[in-house]
């Protein structure tokens, strides 16, 4: 066979490869400016310093990993004369997978070979602390002075130093303004707006059983109402508008630029980082006074390989310099080297010290009026339970839920049918029952029975709402 065009095609491929190789050559490499300081202090370049390895497990994205790795390696070389290499473990999945993985490991062994666990919501860290798989950290007084024990009702730092928040995350509404405008739909500003019949089938939501941050935002929504029942009704009105439930909070945020959904709830920096890229199209806003800020903790794992190095890394992340890395733009002397991270520092003093220099998307959570005061008791009683309840009521029953909500919209919300729609199973009908049931969920046989019961309960209920003749 003869291929007259193959020569030309091969030429094209060669040209592309050459262009790419050329581009690679431009990337920075070789000794850096920092080497001079190292040679002066230790008589060695970075490459010649003795190597130490820090092993971390974290759901943080590659940008965060890169910036903290770069900044810390430079700091550590200058301060301690060692070259740190980082190993980021990834067990395939988000914070839930990490928790499962660590539990399995420590069930079978005394050590995990991992020094630091970083990121994923306070719920998982409270669990790990309770299960005894964290190592006590020594936090400096300047750190403790600038991080409140609790804020908005939520613990920011473990009193025994088993974990400490390294950043805070707010929750808000993220929407495609251009398309909402084009479709003459209202732009949401409050949680309740997401439950509006006009946004039916347009909201992309995440599965709280898999995403800790989605679970936290649903808890905020429940708590933005005075009672558990009213909070559930508000949450259910939003869940009923779901286009679908994504595995991760990030998938839900990505559903906007990809054109799958028009509105979603998400963690602040998922929204603000995308808004920075498409300022005319996408909007993130935090419903004022309807959300609190959650800590995003860091901790040292039980029997770390290198406890001293782990402690030093934690110190760096919680230092003013390490905190500023979250929020400064690229180009600032203390800022990130390649990409702005756009996250909220947890230390109060950072907002004052770097005032006017932080990224525009960074708000000071400690300013009055931003934050909702969380009912800590309800939070502790219901957070774990809510993940399972939403999973049973919405994620596992999404088609039935949508059919019921559609029927409510078509029949203009007759009160009896709305009451039926909002009815909760007996074992979670009141705050007291919620606390009781939440305790039962710790046993896996009980949990299986309870959650399976909820799935059937809601499925039957939605069928009734959808099928009954209008009265």
């Amino acid at each position: 066979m003869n291929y007259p065009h193959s020569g030309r095609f091969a030429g094209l491929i060669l040209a592309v490869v050459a262009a790419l190789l050329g581009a690679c050559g431009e990337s920075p490499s070789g000794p850096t400016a920092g080497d001079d300081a190292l040679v002066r202090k230790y008589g060695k370049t970075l490459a010649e310093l003795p190597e130490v390895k820090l092993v971390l497990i974290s759901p943080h994205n590659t940008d965060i990993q890169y910036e903290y790795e770069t900044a810390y390696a430079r700091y550590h070389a200058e301060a301690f004369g060692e070259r740190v290499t980082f190993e980021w473990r990834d067990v395939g999945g988000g914070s839930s997978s990490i928790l499962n993985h660590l539990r399995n490991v420590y069930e079978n062994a005394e050590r995990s070979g991992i020094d630091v666990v970083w990121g994923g919501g306070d719920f998982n860290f409270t669990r790990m602390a309770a299960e005894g798989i964290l190592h006590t950290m020594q936090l400096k007084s300047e750190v403790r002075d600038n991080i409140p024990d609790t804020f908005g009702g939520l613990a920011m730092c473990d009193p025994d130093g088993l974990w400490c928040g390294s950043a805070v995350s707010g929750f808000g509404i993220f929407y495609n303004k251009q398309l909402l405008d084009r479709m003459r739909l209202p732009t949401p500003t409050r949680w309740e707006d997401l439950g509006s019949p006009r946004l039916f089938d347009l909201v992309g939501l995440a599965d709280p059983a898999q995403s800790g941050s989605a679970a936290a935002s649903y808890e905020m929504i429940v708590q933005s109402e005075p009672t558990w029942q009213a909070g559930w009704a508000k949450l259910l009105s939003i869940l009923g508008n779901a286009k679908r439930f994504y595995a991760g909070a990030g998938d839900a945020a990505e559903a906007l630029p990809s054109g799958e959904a028009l509105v979603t709830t998400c963690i602040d920096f998922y929204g603000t980082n995308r808004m920075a890229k498409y300022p005319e199209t996408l909007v993130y806003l935090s419903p004022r006074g309807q959300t609190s800020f959650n800590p995003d903790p860091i901790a040292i794992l039980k029997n770390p390989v290198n406890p001293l190095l782990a402690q030093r890394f934690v110190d760096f992340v919680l230092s003013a310099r390490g905190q500023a890395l979250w929020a400064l733009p690229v180009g600032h002397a203390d800022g990130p080297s390649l990409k702005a991270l756009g996250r909220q520092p947890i230390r109060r003093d950072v907002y004052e010290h770097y005032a006017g220099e932080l990224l525009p998307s960074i708000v000071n959570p400690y300013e009055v009026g931003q934050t909702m005061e969380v009912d800590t008791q309800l939070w502790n009683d219901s957070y774990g339970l809510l993940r399972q309840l939403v999973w049973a009521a919405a994620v596992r029953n999404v088609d039935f839920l949508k059919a019921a909500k559609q029927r409510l919209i078509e029949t203009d919300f007759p009160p009896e049918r709305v009451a039926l729609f909002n009815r909760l199973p007996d074992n979670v009908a009141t705050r007291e029952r919620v606390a009781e049931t939440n305790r039962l969920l710790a046993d896996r046989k009980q949990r299986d029975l309870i959650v399976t019961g909820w799935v059937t309960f809601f499925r039957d209920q939605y069928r009734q709402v959808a099928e009954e003749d209008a009265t």
Partner: protein
Amino acid sequence: MIRNLLPTLASGRLRSTFREERPAALVAAVIVVVITLFLLVPIMETISVGFYSEGELDGYWFERVVSNPILMSELGNTTLLAVITTAVCIVIALPLAVIRARYTFRGINVLAMLLLLPLILPPFVGAIAIKRFLGQFGVLNIMLEDLGLIDMAEGLPPDWLGSGFTGVVILQALHLFPILYLNLSAALANIDPAYMQAARNLGASRFQTFWRVTLPLLMPGLFAGGTIVFIWAFTDIGTPVIVGYEHLTPVTIFKELATSEVTPRTYSLVFIMLSASVSFYLMGRFFLGRNTQVGSTKASVAAETTELGALGTALAWILFGGVVLLSVLPHIGVVLLGVSDHWVNSVLPQEYTLRHLIFVFTSPESLNSIINSLKYAGIATVIDIVIGAAAAWVIIRSKIVGRSVLDGLCMLPLAVPGLILAAGYVAITAQGSWLESFGPTENPFVILVVAYAMRRIPFVVRGVSAGLQQVSEALEEAARNLGASRLGTGLRITAPLIAANIIAAAVLTFSFHMLEVSDSLILAQTPEHYPITKQIYRLATSTGSPEAVNQAAAMGVYGILLLGATMAAASLLLGKRLGMVFRA
């Protein structure tokens, strides 16, 4: 002529059977041990969790699953999905394969090659691309609005992805039809045209000939390919998750495993699903694929092909082109994502960049993951070829007792979802076990390669078996009679005759290894060992950064280029014979 000599040799052969079959028995024993250790043991590790309660053997969780009407109805749903997807694949693949076998027209070789592209769609980014196109506010609807066909101000645009069950069927069919197409092409090429000529000479119409002669001869091939498509659809997680249709057993298992509160119930469900897929496979094999031998009537002359006229060519182009266009949309989407700088609320990207394509080469982890994948896939392919060819040889050429058991054992991986095998490897290499140093956190090189290799053995066994069946044993016997050693015969007579089969099997196996997801995600936990699919996953889900998706797509672009080139080369080399691998 040689055949006539056989009876005279028979008496001698009978005496030497035992001595003759010793090597075959030895090879078979080794293969059985390998499959037991690396496939059965890990699977047992996983599903046994579902049968323990408070540390004791117990059927509690199994009962909880069987008595749960929702879980049971999902199992029914999954079966229905697999049946319908398989049927749709047949509807798409059969006409394409028949036209390809009977006619030639300008461009058929290019179109036939493009038909294979669905097989090499990179994971995750392929899904993201599909959502971009079919999302309710995605490319298709924006295009329709630009054309004035819909008006978003007047009402919601249609939600193509939200079509549930139908959507899953369509996407699965567009992804899996090439398996049947390859299979049918191979089967058609093997039908002796003399049968059809005889039918026509006896007065049958073209349609009657097809219906009464060709189709029955195609049946074994159709059922064989159909079984693979069926099992694939039955265990598929990716497609239903893209569409958001989740009333399916594999999706439920996947989602339950991903939550922070996994109960043994999930593992009981795994056991039930595994039993179902193995039963379906066995049913397909014993009831439908029984007379496989009919299909391998070796053609004595090449089938004649008719050159299509202008109208025929145009129609063929519409048919082939339409299927190609639909099935390569995701690939186009991946490429666009890989080169887009700004792309929101518009049909095409608003700005383009080469930044992401360059990123792959400047990010050591990304580049390293490509190299890792080439290593893992390369070695796993070699293992597959060695084990698969040896197994095929025992199954086809030896007369040892229990070789059909060996055959079944080699086909078992088809029915095992990757997730389950991966979970098993995690369990046996857990911290504290003597295999710990091969575990995901230490150096998963070995378990990754072995897991990859185990899952694709069936394709090599099938591909090589098909070749051996078509090479007359008499040729090998002649060589032996002339004094050639067993090894010499294998290398100088058999190997060259089945080289095409081995190459076809190697290429497809290699491609599947490169695209493997479940084992890659779970078994590679440190960046230095990530294969390309895990790196794509990590970037695609690195959601804090809005550009990560584009970087993941750029990785996908290189994947498509690499595998596309491999596939194209194999397709040019082998033509219609590429399909022999997909015999169940």
